[in-house]
């Protein structure tokens, strides 16, 4: 738990979203838990406990952070966990796994990796702590997987999405350390 919290702090400092600008969720929109208390900053929604979450408008428009999560999931996670978080012959179904773990545990697992190697299985998830492609977007990836796990977002690329917030591309390049 301790390790998890430390990682959350590190990630928030590292991530591209953050800041505290707040927008109350409109009634009728879909966010998990206490919708009224979810807030948005730079396209990323956060729940009362500070965990990233998703936000789906009345007309089905999916928030920007969740879309980014879909894209970056495919970059770094799909090759083992399969399309749309649904698992594969190689690694577990994350739409189920996310029901079992907290955000802190999620961060700890992604950053530190998981090993289950014994006579009956050889499952190894690598540690992504040094992988900017993952850690720059870890909050967005969580939002996306949470939305998939809650059944709020279907398979494939969300059809209707919020536009990118201003400065998103610049912030992405900066976090990734890629010259534009």
């Amino acid at each position, binding site marked *: 738990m301790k390790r998890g919290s430390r990682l959350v702090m590190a990630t928030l400092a590292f991530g591209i979203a953050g800041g505290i600008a707040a927008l109350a969720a409109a009634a009728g929109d879909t966010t998990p838990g206490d919708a009224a208390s979810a807030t948005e900053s730079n396209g990323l929604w956060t729940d009362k406990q500070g965990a990233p979450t998703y936000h789906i408008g009345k007309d089905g428009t999916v928030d920007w952070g969740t879309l980014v999560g879909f894209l970056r999931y495919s*970059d770094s996670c799909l090759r*083992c966990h399969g399309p749309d978080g649904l698992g594969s012959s190689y690694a577990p179904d994350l739409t189920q796994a996310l029901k079992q773990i907290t955000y802190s545990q999620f961060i700890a697992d992604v950053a530190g990796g998981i090993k289950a190697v014994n006579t009956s299985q050889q499952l190894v998830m690598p540690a992504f702590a040094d992988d900017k492609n993952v850690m720059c977007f870890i909050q967005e990836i969580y939002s996306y997987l949470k939305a998939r796990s809650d059944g709020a977002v279907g398979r494939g690329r969300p059809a209707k999405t919020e536009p990118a917030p201003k400065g998103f591309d610049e912030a992405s390049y900066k976090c990734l350390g890629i010259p534009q």
Partner: protein
Amino acid sequence: MKCTGTWVGSAAFGLVAGLLLAGPTAWGQAAGGGTSAPGPTPGPSLAQAASNPDNWAMPSLNDAATRYSPLKQINASNASHLQVAWTFSTGVLRGHEGQPLVIGDVMYLVTPFPNTVYALDLNHDERIMWQYTPTQNPDVIPVMCCDTVNRGVAYGDGKIILHQADNTVVALSAQTGKEVWKTPLASYKEGATGTDAPLVVGNKVIVGVSGGEFGVQGFIAALDISDGHMLWKAFSEGPDNQILFDSHTTSLGKPVGANTGVDSWKGDQWKIGGGDTWGWYSYDPKLHLLYYGSGNPSTWNPVQRPGDNKWSMTIFARDIDTGVAKWVYQMTPHDQWDYDGVNEMILADLRVDGREVPALVHFDRNGLSYVLNRANGELIAAHKYDPSVNWTTGVDMNKSSPNYGRPEVVAQYAPGSKGANVNYTGICPAALGNKDEQPAAFDPQTQLFYIPTNHVCMDYEPYPVAYTAGQPYVGATLSMFPGPGGYMGRFIAFDPVTGKTAWAINDQFSDWGGALTTAGGVVFYGTLKGYLQAVDAKTGKELYSFKTPSGIIGNVMTYMHGGKQYVAVLSGVGGWAGIGLAAGLTDPHAGLGAVGGYAALKDYTALGGQLTVFALPGS
């Protein structure tokens, strides 16, 4: 990054990891004798073993990679009577690509990670003569893009050659399973892994490297089969002294010029440029040339690597003794789709316009079949072998055109044509290609090629990514969906000279098992649902079908033992097929009517690892 391979003799590895159960059982015609002599007892030479049609002595059966067996006890009239003769559990539940070898009275096979090698005594109830499990750090597991597969061991000089997952090549005594030598290649800590079946040519072991999704600078290497030391190593991109090009290296009949492996990249991108060589290798003993293909350039975001990215996506012909490239042909310059060029190069003498041509035939991931003159690299024919291919209108065959030999790219289906962060939709084929590593077979009797194919399309959305050594280096999201018609696989009989399909069998899922064709007029292949299929080579008519315990991504092989012909295949769903298709595909463009999606592979088959061997009844 020059040749850095180190090698150690058997003395340093005196401790045997193998389990030696008994003395020699079965050495067939050229058996050695003694049980007590240290070190390997000479078995038959590879040339001797491969010339006996009863054996399956090389991963692709022969130098030419035809997978055509002259055996004909099983034929189109009696194949319907096939039955299971025996089975063997490998003890591993991951994707089982590749095929066993049979030399004399012994079968050799290798499992996915941890890469256990088994020698089975065919004379005594398939008893385990010896088994060998290397000690490998499990950290290699997640570095293997798309499952911990291995495509088979090779034989030569009385040794079984294994390219294990952590990128170490090991030679084992074929008789005892004891390590003879061990050569580490590039480091898995930087994403370089081993999945390929080595090719043995004379005193050389040819091996490549996997790691295109980790930015590994691809190379092919020749090791000395006697002690494992590196004879030469040739990269896919980089300066001429790394890629082993000289002033005589040609492409489409013209010298390629200097420094092409650097100048066709922006800055130092070539150093993390991929072009990995994890596919199949073939060899022409008359021309003295080795043939293979290189994979995708890294990253998958084409905007980050402007230029032709030479020599990724390229067919190479290299001198077997020096490694120097005689000719090259880049099929997909500046790849924007992940269409690796690593599929097998089948060497066949074909009639083209009334003359016989020493041809190299290749069915590429990009959906095009290529026929080249394997002596000089002349491009003879290029056709789409799946009707859905839409990223190109075809290859420019006009010799006076400045674009001669290049594919004409359709901008709408070229991710990167409008920059990154754009979703390019409806591209066919998908990144897994119309055919992946699953090998095709060539039948000299019908003059047809039998090809297991994928019929899958995709949306592709590239975006910027950062490189970190040993971490995935991808940079694109792709959503796959079944091709036109709503099915995902086709098993076809095809003529690459004319581009005509003689017959096709549509399949619900991709056909990811390698093909075998035989003088008995029977073609065999396996399906992802787990069926071993036998069909008539002339018509495609189904002769026999049997559901094995797990999905098939292995390659069917055949051998003769005790006067009886056997057909064998590994089951064990996995690989990229198991990852991409486990949950089924959905079509994002089909609208609300498609809710529920397509069939999920996991509804039909579960993990397994089994060899199933078939024969006709009676003795």
